[in-house]
């Protein structure tokens, strides 16, 4: 589709997007790139100059705009809550428009307050009595009220501080894991796009797409210098967020309990010893260097020796390679500590082991990406009808 304004400005230029059901697509790009216009065309706040938009195979222009919009959730920046309505009545907006009784709509509103992590006691407050983050959550609850299959989010988190933004993003991800809505989210923040998106559509400044694909592919295989520049200089490191640590081989490492003596530690010949004990027998306490042990009496128990902080650990399997690498960088020993779900040391990973895991994961991802690209080319030649659009 294309959107050309009367003054000749082309906001969106021959764009062809397919949003898969149940996925989060993030439209990202510099301001004025047409991402918001694209979003607004989906619920007909803006009508395209050319082209069509299909929702479940039906052209949206065949539908009454108000009716169409009631079936599409909408969240905007600074929440756009109605200042003259209580929180519950704000959330109840679309159900009431759809003819629900007020009592039923309010009951639904209270339920949704819990869904978005707010205290139902806030139901009777007015929006201005809430914090920015709470308002934004109410905005999400309002969009979900009529249980629409599609959710449009226009810079939903840009007006809150970074800490709250992080929380809201986390919540969106967990909500989405549960609800499986088809979400189109607009942001200018590439970090947000990479964090919450299943698919990222990165725009050029004038309404064309620079790259479309899963976030790890934007980081790993940017289509051109523009994309590489937009995703930022440490994209290699950030891409590691998408690789789990399952494939990482761990070594048992120089791990000793606090009851062991300095002499036994020295005997291992390791430059750094990881001392464990405390909450469980295998809870990491800290690193101690051979240098420090050399100056101590051999009978001293390791529990009584001052240790250096290990920074943080990573949970084997759950955490990403990025977390593991970070743990290695922060560790005085240059070794990352892998723990199980109970926080017990499962093994340690050296830079060499991390490098091997990173290379293997990247090779596997590159092969997947290549296959995806091939599939897409085949599909494009086959001219398939869009799923959502």
């Amino acid at each position, binding site marked *: 589709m294309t959107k050309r304004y009367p003054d000749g400005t082309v906001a969106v230029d021959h764009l062809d997007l397919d949003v898969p059901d149940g996925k989060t697509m993030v439209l990202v790009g510099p301001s004025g790139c047409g991402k918001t216009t694209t979003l607004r065309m989906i619920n007909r706040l803006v009508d395209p100059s050319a082209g069509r938009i299909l929702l479940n195979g039906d052209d949206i222009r065949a539908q009454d705009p108000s009716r169409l*919009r*009631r079936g599409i959730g909408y969240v*905007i920046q*600074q929440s*756009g*809550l*109605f200042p*003259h309505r209580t929180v519950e009545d704000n959330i109840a907006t*679309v159900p009431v428009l759809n003819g629900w009784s007020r009592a039923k709509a309010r009951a639904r509103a209270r339920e949704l307050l819990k869904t978005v992590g707010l205290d139902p006691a806030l139901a009777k407050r007015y929006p201005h009595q809430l914090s920015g983050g709470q308002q934004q959550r109410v905005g999400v609850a309002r969009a979900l009220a009529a249980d629409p299959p599609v959710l*449009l989010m226009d810079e939903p988190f840009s007006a809150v501080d970074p800490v709250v933004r992080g929380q809201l993003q986390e919540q969106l991800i967990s909500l989405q894991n549960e609800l499986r809505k088809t979400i189109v989210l607009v942001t200018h923040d590439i970090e947000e796009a990479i964090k919450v998106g299943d698919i990222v559509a990165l725009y050029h400044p004038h309404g064309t797409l620079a790259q479309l694909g899963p976030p790890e592919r934007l980081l790993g295989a940017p289509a051109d210098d523009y994309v590489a520049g937009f995703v930022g200089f440490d994209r290699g490191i950030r891409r590691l967020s998408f690789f789990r640590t399952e494939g990482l081989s761990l070594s048992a490492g120089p791990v000793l309990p606090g009851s062991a003596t300095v002499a036994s530690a020295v005997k291992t010949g390791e430059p750094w010893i990881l001392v464990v004990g405390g909450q469980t027998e295998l809870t990491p306490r800290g690193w101690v260097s051979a240098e420090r042990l050399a100056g101590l009496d051999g009978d001293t128990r390791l529990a009584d020796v001052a240790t250096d902080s290990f920074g943080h650990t990573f949970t084997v399997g759950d955490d990403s390679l990025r977390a593991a690498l970070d743990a290695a960088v922060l560790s005085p020993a240059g070794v990352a500590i892998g723990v199980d779900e109970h926080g017990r040391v499962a093994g340690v990973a050296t830079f060499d082991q991390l490098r091997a895991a990173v290379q293997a994961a990247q090779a596997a991802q590159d092969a997947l990406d290549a296959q995806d690209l091939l599939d897409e080319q085949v599909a494009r030649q086959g001219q398939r009808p869009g799923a959502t659009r």
Partner: protein
Amino acid sequence: MMWSWIPANWSQIWELTRQNAFLGIVSPLIGLVISLPLGVVAARWRWFYPPTLVFINVIYAIPSLALFIALIPAFGLTDTTVVIGLTVFSLCVILPNVVEGLRGVPGPVKQAATAMGYGPLRRLVTVELPLATPVIIAGLRVGVVSSVSLASVGQIIGVSSLGYLFIDGEQRDFPTEIYVGLFCVIVLAVVCDLILVGVRRVLTPWASGRNRAAGERPRWVLTQRAPARVT
């Protein structure tokens, strides 16, 4: 000051106050009814507003007595003449507030309303007008107070109001009557104003303790205008 004059003439004072109140309250209410559709049009089609504003400012500049006299050939020496005149003046202060109130509705709120599936009329009635209410009532307050005060001028063309006490007091060289008239006009204006404050509290519970700012800005502009009107 002859205090005994007051109880002796109580029923006349009361009657004049009642008539003054009628003229002073009905006129701005009619003004409000006319301002709402005009304001909606002016807020939506922006080009409409500047010429309208110039026009109502010109009208507002007409001395009230001159306007009453100009209306006499059509409506005679009746309440209607005074009500029409006062309606026109109150329109001049209420209309800008209706426009400002509607324009003051935050863009994201309007956009959200449309995106939720409100049609234009429903959005106007259930979202925009309620949000504009504090500003509209601020304009109405100025309109009512100035109409209550101006209604006394109607006495000059023979329409009875508290103005009678001024004219009669002056002719008889009896200041007590003038003071009583003045006092009644002021009390009437203050009472009407307080009632409107109460109405606003009831209609806009969401605004209490919070955004006086929403009502304050345009009202300030208008209270600047209102005292300029003296006759």
